[in-house]
């Protein structure tokens, strides 16, 4: 079978390594740091129902709800499946309710309306002045353990996973990618790896990888800040019922509550400093939904960069679609042997991998179906056994 080289050990690379190994390809993956040390391990931990995108980005919403139900089946140990609430606090939120509910239903996302009293019965920490809440199939995911289950399964199926191994160069001969130059941080040495196809799964770093091959891709790093406070204030995910904005979601996890987020556009995914003023702002906004947020000690704050598709500096970044795509650079740039996959969400990692592996099958002339939707993943603990 063909040897497929994957660059990037985030959720997308993890799911792709699993999918390709299951289809029988020889797989080698290279990640420059610890696995999942890019954006994936650091995300907010929401298994999206898709509701957040239903009104303005129905494609992403449909992808999310489909993957939401698949991941519940194949990786239940890495999920707190407690649903989510979208809470209405103001008249403007109430006015948004109708289009929100209709859009959710159109995308196949189930919605149940709760009165303020019912919502407070489920979640007593909510703002007592809320007008109503909508219950949806959001869930909490462990941002490290869920993708690690993909890695564990990929490894058991023969994929070779190399962490602390950075791609420093891409070898091209006569318009065709033939392999990569790796710097191994563990052994402090460089070496070459030959492959039949190279997949760029580096998320917000995708532009940097393509630059190594002298081409460009339409990906823009879109960083955001997340904040945890040191108590679990709710059991369900709490969202503000309004158009996607800043500081409008609280994801409970273990004994913490994770508040998020903000969004701006950056040129370089590396070396993004945490803008500390965002912390106060996010806490203030989230406290409108759950007032106790304000009185709970700060636990930590950090930022990560979204891999946004096709964003330009001038766009309203909230409106950039969270869908994903994969590109055959033969078609885009007349460079054979390189595929890029980018965009999407941690929630849609499996679907991103399926689409990319389908493209790889077409390119290699193989007729192998995707089997990842039905395969329960191995436990992350088996990654180390």
């Amino acid at each position, binding site marked *: 079978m063909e040897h497929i080289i994957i660059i990037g050990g985030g959720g997308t690379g993890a799911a792709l390594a699993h999918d390709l190994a299951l289809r029988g390809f020889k797989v080698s993956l290279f990640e420059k740091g610890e696995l999942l040390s890019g954006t994936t391990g650091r995300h907010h931990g929401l298994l999206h129902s898709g509701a957040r995108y239903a009104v303005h980005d129905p494609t992403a919403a449909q992808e999310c709800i489909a993957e939401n139900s698949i991941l519940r089946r194949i990786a239940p140990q890495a999920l707190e499946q407690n649903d989510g609430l979208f809470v209405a606090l103001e008249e403007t939120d109430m006015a948004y309710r109708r289009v929100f509910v209709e859009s959710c239903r159109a995308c196949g996302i189930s919605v149940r309306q709760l009165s303020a009293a019912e919502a407070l019965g489920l979640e007593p920490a909510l703002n007592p002045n809320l007008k109503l809440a909508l219950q949806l199939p959001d869930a909490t995911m462990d941002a490290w353990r869920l993708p690690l289950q993909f890695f564990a399964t990929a490894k058991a199926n023969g994929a070779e996973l190399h962490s602390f191994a950075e791609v420093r160069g891409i070898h091209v001969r006569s318009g065709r990618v033939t392999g990569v130059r790796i710097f191994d941080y563990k052994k402090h040495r460089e070496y070459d790896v030959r492959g039949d196809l190279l997949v760029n799964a580096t998320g917000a770093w995708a532009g940097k990888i393509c630059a190594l091959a002298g081409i460009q891709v339409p990906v823009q790093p879109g960083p955001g800040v997340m904040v945890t406070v040191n108590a679990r204030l709710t059991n369900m995910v709490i969202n503000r019922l309004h158009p996607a904005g800043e500081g409008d979601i609280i994801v409970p996890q273990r004994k*913490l509550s994770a508040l998020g987020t903000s969004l701006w556009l950056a040129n370089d995914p590396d070396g993004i400093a945490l803008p500390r003023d965002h912390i106060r702002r996010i806490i203030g906004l989230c406290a409108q939904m759950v007032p106790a947020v304000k009185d709970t000690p700060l636990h930590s704050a950090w930022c990560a960069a979204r891999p946004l598709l096709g964003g330009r500096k001038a766009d309203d970044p909230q409106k950039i679609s969270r869908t994903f795509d994969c590109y055959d650079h033969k078609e885009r740039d007349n460079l054979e042997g390189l595929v890029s996959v980018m965009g999407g969400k941690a929630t849609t990692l499996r679907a991103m991998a399926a689409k990319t592996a389908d493209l790889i099958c077409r390119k290699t002339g193989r007729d192998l179906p995707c089997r990842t939707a039905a395969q329960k993943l191995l436990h992350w603990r088996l990654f180390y056994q």
Partner: protein
Amino acid sequence: MQTVTFRIWRFKAAQIDPPQFQDFKLSVEANMSVLEGLEKIRQEQDQTLMYRHSCHHASCGTCACKINGRERLACITPIKDLPARPITLTPLDGFASLGDLVVDMHRFYKNLSADWSYLRESDHPGPSRAPREVKPFMRFENCVECGACVSACPVTPESEKFMGPAALAALHDELEKSPAKAADLLSLAGGSRGVRWCKSALRCSQVCPTAVYPARHIAELRRRGERSTK
């Protein structure tokens, strides 16, 4: 902004071998964590510095190391809270280094069964469970599988045979959740790799960053074991 020195244990097989300490001076902001300091060094001074990190909020457990001699998670340790200078960073004890602060976690997971559930009923207070008789709210276990307790335990570096505090705590959690498995679990806890090794030094409970208190679980397993043999 203030300037601090990180004194970091460096090791690369056949390169920096034997290991040695290297000092890095960096300017830090008031609330920066040790992990942010490491990121800054890697970005600005030495790209080859190796450490593990992922979640940046005490959830994945990967960033555990010894900071000024004590096991901590680098991501939730503010630099300003550390009285001693320089800030000395060494890898966890009892694990092999794969490079600098990165340790090989195989040993840790050897004793942690994939059959033991990572979910428990949520203990979040309030009347929130009342209307949901059907399905209780669930949450992840406290243990983030960081290895700090195994490093701090006086027994584990001595003997690979001891399951270690985190595994015994997880075993005890599983026992509480699945009473039907009691016989098997108790015989594992009472077996040749189990509680008999524990010297009740309590170091595990002192260093655990997420308040698992493994020593309490071990004490409880001992009580259960004694009861079942009587």
